[in-house]
């Protein structure tokens, strides 16, 4: 399809979004990532029944934790699509990148020595 999406998105592949843990997302932000988002299958279509629902819950938890420490909770987001939706994947990458640019860089980044 030769789709383009912003090159600043670093993809980490997992077998199912149910594998993504709160600490994976939190550590990304802690280490200076400006944002983190999970792209899971559409709700109701998880091969493992509830992997993407668990991920959604964990993303919400991370959003709460980020607010607690004084960062924007919206630096973490959850998106859903089916595996056949390449264009939607690129669309979400663009949307997330634009959204994060609006929020600005992660303030923790400049504090790291």
């Amino acid at each position, binding site marked *: 399809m030769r789709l383009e999406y912003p090159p600043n998105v670093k993809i980490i592949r997992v077998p199912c979004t149910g594998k993504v843990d709160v*600490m994976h997302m939190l550590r990304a932000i802690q280490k200076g990532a400006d944002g983190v988002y999970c792209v899971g299958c559409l709700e109701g279509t998880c091969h493992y029944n509830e992997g993407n629902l668990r991920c959604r819950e964990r993303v919400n938890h991370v959003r709460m934790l980020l607010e607690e420490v004084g960062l924007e909770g919206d630096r973490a987001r959850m998106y859903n699509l089916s595996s056949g939706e390449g264009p939607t994947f690129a669309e979400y990458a663009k949307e997330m990148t634009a959204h994060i640019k609006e929020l600005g860089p992660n303030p923790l980044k400049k504090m790291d020595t």
Partner: protein
Amino acid sequence: MIVAKRKPFEEIKNMLKDYKKVLNVGCGTCVAVCLAGGEKEVDVLTAELDMARKLDNNPVELGKTTVERQCDREYLEALDSMVEDYDALLSMACGAGIQFLAERYPDKPVFPAVDTSFIGVNQDVGWYEERCRSCSSCVLGMTGGICPVTMCAKGLYNGPCGGTNNGSCEIHQDQPCAWYMIYERLSKQGRLDSIMEVVPPQDWQNQTPRTVIQPGYKKPEKD
């Protein structure tokens, strides 16, 4: 198991604001099972504190470790060599573990990261319900396995109060009446006799700290 809930982050951050080197100590038993203070929760809280203190321009050096049980000297011993490097300790164990940690290191400020809540059961992952108040005089044999001390809002021993309302307690419609449940269960078992006897007032002197020495474990008396 003992169930705890993590304290609000702001409260934890505030307790530690004057300390520059803090060791976060988790506990691998009850609070790990109830997802409040085990290894993973130690990781999350430590990461949160690290980020928050950096954002406040008051960075803190954080260490983290989880011992099998903080209510056991045998496991606390492993901390002896680490503790002296830190200004303060943060404990994610239950109240007993926190106190035992503070007792072992009396020169170090020790702070609680969780609110110890109750002795409860696991209804689902992350969902716990209170079942026992550890009153030290169990009446479950008489009450069909339903605890009136925990489940009855008034802790009554001799049947329901006037507030029982079609199976619900007067404090809330969703709160079942303990004595209604007790009656129903015993009635099905044909054991209603067991609650016919009047239970005398309880001796609540157990409100002071209690000690239990299991049979066969009493230390020989010293001369």
